[in-house]
């Protein structure tokens, strides 16, 4: 496991929908398993802050954006497929 890298993750949701809750639960689980101590999760509720949607080019909900490390990666959906999420976040090589 990569030790030195810091992960900044941002999860966009729109209210407390089932999908949002699932996504957040899944994300937290994966991070605890694979990135313990190296990550930061920021949850943005677009119903509260709609102006933030444009900046990160959000169109689907929920969307997970990996801000750091670059390049920016996006994963949309409820993150139910662990393998895809890990590959997408570049935690595990494809």
């Amino acid at each position: 496991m990569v030790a030195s890298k810091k992960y900044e993750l941002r999860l966009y949701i729109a209210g407390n929908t089932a999908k949002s809750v699932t996504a957040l639960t899944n994300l937290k689980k994966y991070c605890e398993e694979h990135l313990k101590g190296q990550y930061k999760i920021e949850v943005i509720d677009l119903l509260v802050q709609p102006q933030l949607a444009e900046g990160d080019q959000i169109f689907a909900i929920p969307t997970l954006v990996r801000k750091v490390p670059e390049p920016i990666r996006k994963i949309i959906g409820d993150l139910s497929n662990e393998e895809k999420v890990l590959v997408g976040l570049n935690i595990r090589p494809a």
Partner: protein
Amino acid sequence: MSKTQKAAAQSRHPLLPKTPTGIKGLDEITGGGIPLNRPTLVCGDAGCGKTLMSIEFIVRGAMEYGEPGVFMAFEEKADELAMNVASLGFDLDKLQAEKKIKIDHVHIDRTEIEETGEYDLDGLFIRLNYAIDSIRAKRVVLDTLENLFAGLSNQAVLRAELRRLFHWLKEKGVTAIITGERGDGKLTRQGLEEYVSDCVILLDHRVIDQISTRRLRIVKYRGSIHGTNEYPFLIDEDGISVLPVTSLKLEKPVSSERVTSGIPALDRMLGGRGFFKGSSVLVSGTAGTGKTSIAAYFANETCKNGKRCIYFAFEESPSQIIRNMHSINVDLQQYVDKGTLKFYASRPTLYGLEMHLVAMYKVIKEFAPQTVILDPITNLITVGSVSEVKAMLIRLIDFLQEEQITVMFTALSLNNIVNEQTDEGVSSLVDAWLLVRDIEHNGERNRGMYIMKSRGMKHSNQVREFIITDKGLDLVDVYLGPEGILTGSAREAQMLQEQTGEVLRENAVGRKDREISRKRKVLEAKISSLQTEFESAEEELNKIYQEEELIRSVSEKTRNEMIKIRRNDKG
């Protein structure tokens, strides 16, 4: 109770409310614009003007109707869009700064995105909602929504979400345009027409005989009357102009006002006062019969009377026409300088017929002339078939009559055509038809002109000789000689001959007069000599008489003497 409520509801919505797009001509075809607060689908192939039409909808709305608009671009970035439409005079940056429009570029890149599990497009809804609310937008454009399908793989989710999106747009109370790329056998590649059921506009860009024409058709407009034809449209520096080319009714205002042709003799042939205002005049003739000269005279006369004229030249360049017309004493340059005469020269092959029509329509609308000249319409045949040219001219005449503009067409007719139809078959459309033709006789070619028809006025049935000189154009009566109609030098010769005869006759009469006076003199002389003779005879007679008297008196005297003497003897 419920019945009356229903009736009330009906009367409250007598017609589908519409929103003017501000795009020239489109509002006329749709009878007022696109459906208010509903989505409209604009579809077509790549490069047919979908994005431009939708952005013009937004910009016109913001600038002319005070309706702010959101442009959600799935294809181009905001600055790219701004650059693309800057050539049309739309300053998107300024409008954005003034909060009149908002451009939101939705960037979807499949390589950056991973899909896992369930999702929806709430993000898009929120973004759109935020954009709409931030400027209180009334208009929305989604260009091109189908890019979502390229970026996301879960079609089932997309389709469900699109259906929700269109519902949402209706509820939001915005008038929306959605653009879609044309697909095989379908209006759009992704079948967007399933979702947008109120109004569908199809754009088309066709190339026929290497000439491209953009056309627009309203495929569907629920709850509204609309033009069903294909309408050509033009994209130029002022944006899109759609030309509603066929007016549906023959209900045009007419004028009994007259306009002079500039040739007094021609006016005399037309009941003395020229053409009707707003009528269409066709001048046809073989090559080199002076059709352009007649047209230039008409243009000159219009401008001389302080009116405006557009001269559409399809054969010669403006400077060429101006130079050539100097030779018949017509100075068109002064009116060009003054701005009352406008030349609009284009090669017929520059673009298709419809485009010519749209271009002419536009120029005429802008310049608002009283007279329009098309010289010659024959050249248009190179870019279309006879029926197409005819259809185009019908529409042009329709439009011009509506605007009360007098139009003069010139047309070349070929010598070998037996009947006198012009090639374009427009002769039945025009109100007045002048025919200029060659009269070949005696080794020279002259021009004869007559009026084939002139609706609604008394006109001369005579063939006149049409003369072009340094001083200008004129018509003279043809000479009816013993051998038929004489023109040109034959006419001159005949006139000369007649003049000679006149002189000779005068001479002859003079001689006779002199002879008579001479005879009179001779007779008078004779009379006087006879008188003298008579006098001398009379004198002779007198002499004899006197002598006799004398003799008688003398002899009496002698006899008396003798008697006396004799008496003395006896005494």
